[in-house]
């Protein structure tokens, strides 16, 4: 009985994990700018990894494979978000813009309005960028 429950559970976890992997992949290809793509990709780093490896864990039973799977899971959950953070940080510092979506959403009005929106967004981005680099400088001075 317990075995069957575990089997069904691992089936569900693996399938849902596969679904999330797919969703993350489609998002990373289709979303409009770098930061949104990164958010889609990090879905595959966290929940999808957790579900797929969790499903395998239920299949493994109590063997040496369980230990290895748990190690893989822990390392991936540690390094995935860290790599995402580091990448987002590097992109922000080098001034990759994130206003592509704003332009689309706000650009429904007249053409001149859209132009204003864009410039405002660029200003806010620039201010974010300077604040980020200031933070970095502060860190470095420490």
């Amino acid at each position, binding site marked *: 009985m317990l075995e069957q429950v575990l089997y069904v559970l691992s089936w569900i976890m693996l399938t849902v994990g596969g679904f999330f992997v797919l969703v993350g992949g489609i998002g990373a290809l289709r979303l409009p700018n770098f930061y949104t793509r990164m958010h889609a990709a990090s879905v595959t780093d966290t929940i999808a990894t957790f579900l797929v490896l969790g499903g395998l864990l239920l299949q493994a039973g109590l063997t040496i494979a369980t230990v290895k799977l748990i190690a893989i899971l822990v*390392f991936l959950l*540690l*390094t995935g978000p*860290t790599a995402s*953070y*580091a990448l987002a*940080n590097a992109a922000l510092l080098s001034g990759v813009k994130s206003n592509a979506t704003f332009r689309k959403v706000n650009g429904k009005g007249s053409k001149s309005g859209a132009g204003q929106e864009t410039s405002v967004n660029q200003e806010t981005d620039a201010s974010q960028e300077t604040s980020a680099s200031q933070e*970095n400088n502060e*860190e*470095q001075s420490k």
Partner: protein
Amino acid sequence: MIIIFAVFLLTLLVITAIAIVRAENLFVAVMLMAIFSLLMAANFFILDAADVALTEAAIGAGVTTVIFLGALSLTAENEKKVELSRGVAMSIVTATTLLLIYATFEKPKLGDPEAPVHQHVAPWYLSETPKLIDIPNVVTAVLGSFRAYDTLGEVFVVFTACIGVLFLLSAKNPADKQSRRTPPESIGLRHHLIPKVVGRLLFPFIVLFGLYVQFHGEYGPGGGFQAGAIIATGIILFALLEGEKTALAAVPHSVMMAMVAGGALLYTMVGVVTMFMGGNFLDYSVLSSNPVFGQQMGIILIEAGVGITVCGALLAIFHAFAARENY
């Protein structure tokens, strides 16, 4: 099913390879090379070659990217355009492709037990390994004992390659000397708190895993080469986090050079000792009164030699690229 996966991965491999050749920005090419290596390892794995896949994983995932990026920081960002007559190149490539396609007609099917490669010495290795050496991983037995000469040659290839790279990179360019700015000292990533903490956490596990691969090579996939690469990756991680200087203080140049030479020397010495004890060169059976145990001891010793040389060579090459200006 598996064969479909393998063909699919091979197709991706071809697409990536073409993209690498066509990429003009060298950074893009380096990133695509990383993907190429990942695809390659997945392919090896699906074709059931776990030892080769582990080698590709140990080298391709970390060390090559690091060394390529080190090389990239010394050169320009874009590929130099070379004007060559395309006709000659195209005809050579076409001829080679046709020749290779012609050669595949005679090839046996994938996994065919009647294939010549499975009829030659492989059955002998498979049947004699339990009797003569008594370890589960036949690949290690073949590399470490039956074909120990070849492996010795490979170790000296690594040794020579390391010396060659160091010679090339330490050559001074007198014309360039004055124009070169004094580079900012590499401080590593010590101001990025989160990567630093996670990296420090990971570092001991990488080295531990390297040792596991080294000493578990007789039982599972792995061995000296992979272990050396993994441990070198761990130390490179340390260098990335803490900066060149700290890493060089931990593993100085003299230690690296001693490792490169010492590993190869250890391997050779095992062979010389077997000769003194009355056997052939690299015939480990004489190392102990029990020949099977002697074989195992010999394999462990030479694997250690391989691991030490590879680790030292990779570290020396990494530092040579990273500290190019200091030579």
